[in-house]
C-alpha cells in the first residue's frame, strides 16, 4: 500500500483534484443528463416505444428517423430490426443497475475492511495491505477475465467482479478517514465518553465520512460503467437477450460502416453518462472541500 494514498484523508492520491469553479451551465447540463438517464432507465417500460427485444426483420439496420429511416425509430434499427432508441433506454437501465449494484458491493466491502483496519490496526492493517497489494498486482481486466474463465459467466459473478473493482480505494479512503477522525480527536473524545465503538462508528464517524465516501463513489462510478461496458463489449459481461450499452456497441461495431448508429448511439450514451458522473463528482467534491473543514 502506498502510504501517501493510505493516509490521505480525502483520497487525493487515488483520485484527482479538479476544476474549481466549473461553469455552472456545464454542471447543470451534467446533472440534467444524469436525471434524464436515470429516469429513462427507470421508466424504460413506459418511455420506450418498443420492447428491447421486439424484432422486425423487415426493417433491419435502418437509419434513424431523422435521417430518413422508418417513422418512430429515433435512433434507427439494429441487425434484428430492433429499435435502437428503446434498446438504449433498457440498456441504460441494465448498465446503471449493474454498475450501481457493483459499486455498492465494492463500497460496502471496502468500507468494512477500512473500518476494521482503522479500528484494530496491527494485523488487520497488514491483511488489508496484503489484499491491496494482491489486487494491485493483477491488472483488473485480466483478473476479471480469469475469474470468468474459471467460474463461467453469470450476472452474479459479474456484479461481484465489478464490486471488486475499486474496493481497495474505498478501503484506503475509509481507513485514512477513520484514522484522521481518530487523530482529530472526536473519536477518542467519544470513546472517553464511554460510548461503545459500534455506536461511535455508526452514529458519529460514518455520517462524518459519508460525504467523502459519496464523492469517492461518484469518482469511481464512471470507471465501473466503463468496465461494465468493456467486458460486455468483449462478450464477457451481460449476455443477450439481455442488453447493455457495452453489448450494444459490441454487436454494433460489426455495422460501423453500414449502420453506424447501432454503435454510436450507445457509445455516445456511455460517454455522456461517464462524463456527467465525472463532472458531478468533481463538482460535488469541490462543494465538500469548500465546506469549512472539520
Amino acid at each position, binding site marked *: 500500500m502506498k502510504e501517501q494514498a493510505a493516509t490521505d484523508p480525502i483520497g487525493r492520491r487515488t483520485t484527482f483534484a479538479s476544476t474549481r469553479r466549473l461553469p455552472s451551465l456545464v454542471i447543470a447540463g451534467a446533472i440534467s443528463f444524469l436525471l434524464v438517464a436515470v429516469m429513462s432507465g427507470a421508466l424504460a417500460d413506459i418511455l420506450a416505444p418498443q420492447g428491447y427485444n421486439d424484432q422486425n426483420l423487415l426493417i433491419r439496420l435502418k437509419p434513424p428517423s431523422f435521417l430518413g429511416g422508418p417513422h418512430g425509430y429515433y435512433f434507427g434499427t439494429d441487425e434484428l430490426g430492433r429499435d435502437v432508441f428503446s434498446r438504449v433506454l433498457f440498456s441504460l437501465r441494465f448498465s446503471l443497475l449493474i454498475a450501481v449494484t457493483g459499486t455498492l458491493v465494492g463500497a460496502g466491502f471496502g468500507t468494512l475492511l477500512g473500518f476494521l483496519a482503522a479500528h484494530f490496526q496491527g494485523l488487520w492493517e497488514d491483511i488489508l495491505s*496484503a489484499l491491496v497489494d494482491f489486487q494491485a*498486482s493483477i*491488472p483488473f*481486466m485480466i483478473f476479471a*477475465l480469469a475469474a470468468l*474463465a*474459471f467460474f463461467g459467466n453469470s450476472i452474479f459473478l459479474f456484479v461481484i467482479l465489478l464490486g471488486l473493482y475499486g474496493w481497495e480505494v474505498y478501503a484506503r479512503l475509509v481507513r485514512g478517514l477513520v484514522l484522521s477522525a481518530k487523530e482529530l480527536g472526536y473519536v477518542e473524545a467519544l470513546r472517553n465518553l464511554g460510548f461503545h465503538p459500534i455506536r461511535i462508528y455508526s452514529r458519529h464517524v460514518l455520517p462524518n465520512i459519508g460525504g467523502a465516501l459519496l464523492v469517492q463513489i461518484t469518482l469511481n462510478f464512471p470507471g465501473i460503467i466503463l468496465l461494465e461496458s468493456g467486458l460486455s463489449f468483449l462478450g464477457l459481461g451481460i449476455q443477450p437477450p439481455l442488453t447493455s450499452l457495452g453489448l450494444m456497441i459490441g454487436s454494433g461495431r460489426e455495422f460501423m460502416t453500414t449502420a*453506424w448508429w447501432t454503435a454510436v448511439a450507445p457509445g455516445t450514451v*456511455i460517454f455522456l453518462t461517464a462524463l456527467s458522473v465525472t463532472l458531478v463528482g468533481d463538482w460535488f467534491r469541490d462543494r465538500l472541500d469548500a465546506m469549512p473543514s472539520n
Partner: protein
Amino acid sequence: MSARFLIVRTLRALLTLILVVTFVFLMLRLAGDPIKMLLPEDTPASVVEQYRARWGMDAPIYVQYIRYVASVLHGDFGMSFRDGRPALQAVTERIPATLTLGFAGLAVALLVGLPAGIAAAVMRNSIVDRSVISFAVVGHSVPTFFFGILLIMLFSMSLRWLPSSGSATWAHLVMPALTIGLWNAATLARFTRASMLDVLSQAYMKTVLANGLPSSWRILRYALPNAAIPIVTMLGLIVGQLLSGAVIVETVFAWPGIGRLTVTAVAGREVAVVQTIVFLSALAMVMANLLVDLIYGWLDPRIGSKTGGMSR
C-alpha cells in the same frame, strides 16, 4: 533510502507473488473439477482418470499445492491444449507485442499527460488550464473500445491513412498506442495537475517565491520533484491500466499481444494459458511496483529514513 526499505519492499513483493500463485492454484480448485477444465471437453473418462493420476490431482490438496508451486518455480505452467504447446511458450511469444504497445502507450501518456498537467497547474484558470481539464475529463469518459472504433472509422475507412488492424508495420502501432495512451494521458494530466497544484500551495513554495528564485527554478527544481512523488506512485497504477487496457485495445485493433490472447484463452477456457497470463502479468506488475517504490524512495528522502515509517 535504506537497505531496510529495499528489503521490506522486496519481501512484500514476494509475498504478493506467493498470494498470486496461491490464488491461481485455488481458483482452479474452487471452480470445480480441475481436470475437467484442463482437458478438452470430449476427453473419455478413462483418459481423464489417467491424467488425474499423471498430474497428481489425486494427492492431498497441500501436496498438490507444493507441487504446483514447485512447477511454477520451474516455469512449468502446464500445456495449452488448443495447440499442444507449453502454456508459457504460448504466452511469452505474445509478450513483445504487448510490450511494444505498452511502451508506446506509456510514451503517449507521459508525453501528453505530464506537460499538459504541469502547464495547467502553472497557468491555473487560464485557457490552457481549461483546455487540459476538458481534455482530461472528456478523455477519461470515452470508452477505449468506442474511441478505437471511431479512430478506425476516421483514419482507416474515411481517410485511409492508417491500417486498421494487425501489427505488421509501425503504422499499425499508431492507433492502438494513441487509444491506450490518450486515455491514460487524460488520467495522468489530471493527476499531474492536482499534484502540482497541491505542491504549489505548500508553504515551501512560498519560501521559494519569497527568496526571489526565477520561476523556471521554482517549477522545475522545487515544485516538480515534489509533485513527481505522487505521480510516480501513479505510474504503477498506469502500468496496470495499460495491461488492462491492452485487453480491449488489442481486441479492437487485432494486436497480437497478451491482451488478445487472454480473451481467446478465456473464450476457449484455456485454463493453463489463463493461469500463466495471470501469473506473468502479476509478476510484471509487482516488478513495476517495486521499481516505482525504488524511484519513490529515491525521489522522496523521507521514505525509509529513520523518521519515516512504514505507515504514518
